[in-house]
């Protein structure tokens, strides 16, 4: 059993990380007061941008291609999210419709561009990140094989971003202002701070981080852009809700969902895990999110002004 766990664990982490950064992006946006249902599309944009960038740079320098791809994913996600920011902040549009439009636009436009630029709807890169054992830490008993063996460097970058985001959102005055924009924007405005600027920051961060999530999918377990992130963006939204709009909560929720997804995926290969039908693991995140919404319906932790134009 221990052997199976150590085998499966790195995959669970690999599934968790893109969801974690994307949900973190959603956290920035929701906390600033803008509902972002376009995370799936923004992820897809990052997925595509990194694939194209890596495809055209990997022949020049393999070492530089992957970080460059991630950077492209971040920039592309941030730029694409401006569409949502403009609609929901300046024009006070319906944020749900705008987010849906972002999703549809991303899934059509990325494949359109992939077909035009790369000649096919699928863009394959030569090589993703090579998994490595971390020198000293992987020798620690129990924790070593679970967390520090066979890990991607991108995992540590993303966890660092998560930690920094927590500090930014909860330990600085800037973070307090951003969160206040999602709770009581008029109070922020009366303190002489631009609510619009804060919300722009929130939405752009959500785009950048969701784009990063898409890029991470590509260079860790996917290796190929195929025009869909298979609902991972929506799963991130579920994790955001299940994690009750808190950094630690989303870390736990995404990890929980990551394990469930991994078990469902590998249950055909590993018979010991096949006792429970995999469909239960796949629908589990969505069901528990619905249950969480029901359970917390009396005392919702959602940002009060989220989704309301200012």
């Amino acid at each position, binding site marked *: 059993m221990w052997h199976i766990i150590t085998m499966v664990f790195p995959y669970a982490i690999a599934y968790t990380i893109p969801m974690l950064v994307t949900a973190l992006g959603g956290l920035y946006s929701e906390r600033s007061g803008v509902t972002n249902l376009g995370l799936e599309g923004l992820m897809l944009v990052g997925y595509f941008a990194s694939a194209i960038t890596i495809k055209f740079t990997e022949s020049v320098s393999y070492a530089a291609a992957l970080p460059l791809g991630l950077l492209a994913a971040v920039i592309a996600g941030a730029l694409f999210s401006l*569409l949502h920011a403009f609609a929901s902040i300046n024009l006070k549009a319906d944020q749900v419709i705008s987010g849906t439009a972002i999703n549809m636009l991303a899934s059509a*436009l990325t494949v*359109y561009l992939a077909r035009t630029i790369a000649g096919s709807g699928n863009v394959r890169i030569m090589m993703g990140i090579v998994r490595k054992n971390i020198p000293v830490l992987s020798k620690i008993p129990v924790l070593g094989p679970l967390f520090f063996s066979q890990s991607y460097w991108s995992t540590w970058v993303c966890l660092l971003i998560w930690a920094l985001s927590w500090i930014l959102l909860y330990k600085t005055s800037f973070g307090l202002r951003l969160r206040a924009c999602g709770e009581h924007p008029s109070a922020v405005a009366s303190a002489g701070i631009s609510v619009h600027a804060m919300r722009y920051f929130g939405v752009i961060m959500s785009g950048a981080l969701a784009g990063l999530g898409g890029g991470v999918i590509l260079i860790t377990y996917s290796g190929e852009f195929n025009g869909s992130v*298979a609902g991972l963006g929506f799963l991130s939204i579920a994790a955001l809700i299940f994690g009750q709009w808190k950094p630690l909560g989303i870390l736990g929720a995404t990890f929980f969902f990551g394990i469930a997804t991994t078990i469902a995926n590998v249950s055909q290969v590993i018979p010991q895990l096949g006792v429970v039908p995999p469909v239960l693991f796949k629908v589990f995140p*969505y069901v528990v999110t619905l249950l969480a*919404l*029901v359970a917390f319906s009396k005392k919702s932790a959602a940002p009060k002004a989220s989704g309301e134009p200012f």
Partner: protein
Amino acid sequence: MSKKPKQKKEFKSNDFLIALSAVVLGLIAGAVLMAAIGSNPFEGFLYLFRGGLMNIERIGNTLATATTLMLVGLSVAFAFKTGLFNIGASGQMLVGGLCATLVAHHVFLPRPLYLVVLILSALLGGALWGVIPGFLKAKFNVHEVVATIMMNWIAYWSVYYFVPAYLKGPSLETESASIAVTQSLRTEWLTKMFHGSYVNLGIFVAIVAVIIVKFILDKTTLGFELKAVGSNRFCAEYAGIKVNRNVVVSMMIAGGLAGLAGLTFYTGYARNMQIGVMPSQGFDGIAVALLGASNPVGVLFSSLFFGMLQSGKGFMNAMTSVPPEIADTIIATIIYFTATSVLFKKFWDGVARKMTIRREKEVAAQEAQDAKDAQTVAGRLAEPSSGPDVSLHPSRESIGPVSGGTDGKEVK
């Protein structure tokens, strides 16, 4: 002054104008994208429209594509009327389609009876998937957008594992076994009439649904209550309307309509279910409803338009180098522009205001002229010695400096 409100009414931007602006901008965006990859947009659009309407068979295919979109559009529009956003039409389609596919595989009855069972199964499947978010909204105040998204993915993964386990096709793991043509919605006379296209009995289901939904919304107490809840739920509650019950009913009917869309798609347009595909029609339906201004008749026409775009894209791709995703891009752009419709509203209201002001100026100038004429006439009558030349001079002088003054301001 009394003319002012009348003129405002005359020029006010309406839903249709806004929707039309969104469509035009969406098509322009499509043209820009085609030009960006070095294709001729005019040629692209020509082939796109020809692909949808070139001959009887293609018109049939456009109708078949529009059938599904019409029902999804109705579903979204119906929920909109009650102030709910049904973003879960995809999941409701999947469940409705799954129920219909199961019936098609296992139920063998005389044709008319069979069709009733088939339609009812899809209706109930979709309604079940819609009523759950409705119940959660009514009972626990769970936002229906989040709930329907979750339901979408629950349906997606359920179908993903259900189809290979119970409806496995002979060749591929990723799709269900095809149902017999005689068990599908296709009928010989309709297929023959449209030279072998995909058009099927679903089109009649959709048209009947349009009529029924229009009847419910316009002529029944239920429709009145649903609309009242949609326009102001507190006011409706105060008037004694059971808001929660109406929310549940609305989501149930919306789900049922989307379930019927699944029926027309999986047992009419196609004859099997592919796994791992979230039906994009569920989201295209949002565009259909928005463009149709949530009006059943509007939905009918906008679904035909989007059906044409979707059905012509393959032909366009074959004839030009434009990828077929251009149609989806155009639809997504139209949704985005509908969401940001406040821009067009401002624009058209601005145009209307300018026109009103110009009208008013003209009217005022006319009135001033009339007054002046009257004065001149009166002056001439009073003092016959002072001719029209004298009375005109002061007015000319007064015009001079004023216009000079405005020039100065503009320079500043």
